[in-house]
Each structure stands twice: as structure tokens, then as C-alpha cells.
């Protein structure tokens, strides 16, 4: 008898979880925005680590992996999981698009002896908007200054650019059912706009 009661209770206790994706209220979406800003801080730190030539190759490679882990894994194509793209627009009109991993690897392998990256207290995250995939989408924007120097500290290259990152907040229902955390932020495609060369370069 008790066995049947347990089965009955367990079966019916799960029904409430089968409803459609929940609508997020404004308070909850504001939490997503704060969490996104934390993730942007993480990304900024990883980029600084990747570019820091005083660190070991292993540490910088680990920073590449951590940076890539912040990005969403797209659909399977030819047996590979694709990561998002970075589109870089230069002032001279050239535009290039590369996968995020290659972008970070290129940053690791820049030819300067010393790299200095500075961020500004101007990062903003747009309001989240629901997509047809049930996830919520926003855009994070921040500004970054990059300086590449030789051994003597002479500036060889410098620019200040703006980065826009597509952000996806994964549906809470999916994660609750899988028994995992329910706020999950992933980054998507990035556009990098080369705004201004640093004076002296």
C-alpha cells in the first residue's frame, strides 16, 4: 500500500515542472543584467591574462579555455561544436571575422614584448528580450584600450575600441529540470570597432 502511495506522490509532484518556459519578471531580468556584468568582468580579466606575457604559456592557454567557456556552444556542424564569431572592423576599412577561440589565440600570439590592456567603467548591458528559443537575449557593451610595446616600453601599436557582445540567458526551466543552476549566461558573437588610434602611434 505504502509503495503505491509513494509512486502516486512522486508522479504527481513532478507535474508542476512540465509547464512551458516561465515568463521572467522585470526583477528577475534585472538579476540577469547584474550577472551579465559579472561575466563581462570575468571576460575582461581572462583577456588581460591571455595578453600578459609575464605569465607562463600554460596559464595563458588556460585563460583562453576559460574565456571560451563563457561563450555559447552552437549547433553541431560536421561533428564539431561551433563557437561564436568575432567581427573586427578596422579604421582603414578592413573587416575580418574569426571564431572566438582563434581570436583569443591570436591575442596570445601578438608580436609585442609587452601588452597593456585598460578597461573603462562604462560597461552596460541592454534589457533582456525573449527569443523564440525560449532564452532571453541582451547585448553587453564595453570599451577597451590596447597598447603593444617593445622591450624598452616604446609604444608600437595602440587603439581604443568598443566591443558589443551578444548575451544569452538560458531558460530557467531547462536548467531546473536538469538539476543544475537556473541562471546561466553565455556570450555569443562579438563586434569589435576600432574607434581611435592612441596618440603617439
Amino acid at each position, binding site marked *: 500500500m505504502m509503495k503505491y502511495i509513494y509512486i502516486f506522490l512522486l508522479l504527481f509532484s513532478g507535474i508542476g515542472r512540465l509547464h512551458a518556459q516561465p515568463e521572467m519578471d522585470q526583477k528577475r531580468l534585472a538579476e540577469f543584467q547584474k550577472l551579465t556584468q559579472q561575466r563581462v568582468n570575468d571576460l575582461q580579466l581572462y583577456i588581460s591574462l591571455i595578453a600578459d606575457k609575464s605569465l607562463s604559456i600554460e596559464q595563458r592557454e588556460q*585563460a583562453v579555455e576559460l574565456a571560451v567557456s563563457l561563450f555559447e556552444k552552437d549547433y553541431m556542424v560536421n561533428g564539431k561544436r561551433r563557437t*561564436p564569431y568575432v567581427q573586427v572592423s578596422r579604421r582603414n576599412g578592413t573587416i575580418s571575422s574569426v571564431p572566438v577561440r582563434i581570436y583569443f589565440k591570436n591575442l596570445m600570439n601578438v608580436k609585442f614584448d609587452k601588452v597593456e590592456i585598460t578597461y573603462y567603467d562604462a560597461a552596460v548591458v541592454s534589457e533582456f528580450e525573449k527569443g523564440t528559443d525560449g532564452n532571453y537575449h541582451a547585448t553587453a557593451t564595453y570599451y577597451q584600450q590596447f597598447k603593444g610595446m617593445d622591450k624598452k616600453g616604446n609604444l608600437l601599436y595602440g587603439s581604443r575600441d568598443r566591443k558589443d557582445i551578444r548575451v544569452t540567458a538560458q531558460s530557467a526551466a531547462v536548467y531546473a529540470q536538469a538539476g543544475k543552476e537556473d541562471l546561466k549566461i553565455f556570450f555569443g558573437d562579438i563586434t569589435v*570597432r576600432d574607434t581611435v588610434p592612441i596618440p603617439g602611434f
Partner: protein
Amino acid sequence: MASTITRLWVFTLLIPFSGLRAQVAPTRTDATRQAAGSTDLKRRAAESFMNGQIKHVSDFIDRFNNAVKAENGSENALGALFNEDDPRLPGSGRQHHPYASQVDAFVQSVWAAKFIIPKRGTMSAVIGIKVRCDSTPDTLKLHLRKDYTTDSAAYWHIVRVIAPARLLEEKENARKMQTSGTHAELPPNANEVSFLPLLRGLNDYQSMAPFTHCMECRDTAWEKVESALQNGRMTTEAVVSNKIYLVARYWELELCEFIREKENSGWLISDLVEKTKP
């Protein structure tokens, strides 16, 4: 037995609340961050242009609507939403242009009627994609529209194709192609990153079909481009232009993104079209 059943009912009542755990993601820790503690994250205060720049289209809509509702300085706030470097607008050494009168008429009509731009209103885009067609560089223009579903979700999709001239000039009809049944919807903020999800999708699928949901949009130009994508004659390289169109009552606003280090930058009005009043 009775007390056991009571305990079980209490247990059942508690189960739904188990879903409330982990409302906030746990704090991240990682070895690299600790190992590389010597690396300081250099930060500076924001510069004035960074705060003034209109970074997202939703930001533009907020600023427009706030300007409309403002008791004082509404006209100046509306004027600040236009690209001040537009040679058609008044400025030192510039001759009067009919566009300036149109802008004045627009500001006056907004001020008089106090109409705002709805956050989920009509939004469309025209983008230029740098392509290689038979190894020759060219530009493919795509018209996209943002649509909304009944459950408040939003997505972008292709509604019109302007094929590169070399394809249009070909007299042969495009060979009938097999289009996959794949249906892909571009995220609602794809416009903020120059429609990169579309560029990646065109590369991956070698087809526009997943992003073209309306069958009537698949005209001759669409078929010619689709054929060229499928047989490898055309490859996409980069998104080189991105214009957004918003509707504010009887006006259509064209927005372009101006990336420059001044407060009048970001998403700004680059053109206006007065639509026929019903």
C-alpha cells in the same frame, strides 16, 4: 499509518519549492585567476563620449521617448538624436537643405502630438554583406524584419534580397534547388552585433532558406542568390553595413551606427521619410 500519510502529504507540499534553489548562480572560482593574481585589471573612469553614445537600439527608443515626455528641452533632446555631422543639417558653412526643414517638421510633429516609439513596434533592417561571387568581390543586400510571436518572443528573418548586379544580369533562370526544411530564427538582438548570427548561418548552411520564412519572399533575385550560395559560386565574408528602420507614427526613421569619440555617436537618425497619413 495516519501519521505516515500526513508526513507524506507534507513532503509532497515541499517538493515544488525544491525548484527554487540556485536562483543565483554560484560564485566562480578558478585556478588561473588565483595563479595569475599578479595581473591587475586596469580600469579608468568612463569618458564623457562613452556615457553619451547611444549603444543599443533599445537605448535609442528610451532616449526618444524620454525626450518626448520631457517638460523642458524636448526639442534639443530630439535634435541630439540626429547625426550632427550630416551635411544636410544646419551648421557652419553649410547651405540650407530641404532635409533640414523635414527634420524641423518631424520635431514639431513629435512635440505637438507627443507620440512615442513602442518597444515592440515595427522594426526592419537593411544590411550589406561583402561576398565573393565567382571570386569577384561584390555586395549582397538583405532586407530583414523583426517579428513577434504570441508568447512575446521576437526574432529576425529575411524578407527581401537584392542580388549583386552580376547575378541579376544573367539571363539563365536559377536552377531549381533543394532547400532543406531547416528553420532558423535569428535572435532578437542580432542587429546589435551586425547580424553576425546570420553571417555564420549563411556560411554553415550555404543557404538563406532557413532564415527566409515567407514563401512569397523567395522571388527571382532570392533564387539566384540561393543557387549561387548552394553551388559555391558565392561565399559570404563580412557584414559591411547595417541600417535599422523604426516607425514613429507617420514617420520612418533610418538609424545608422556612428562609432566616434564624441557624445553625438552610436545609433543616430541618418534619414527620415514621412509616410502617407491614412
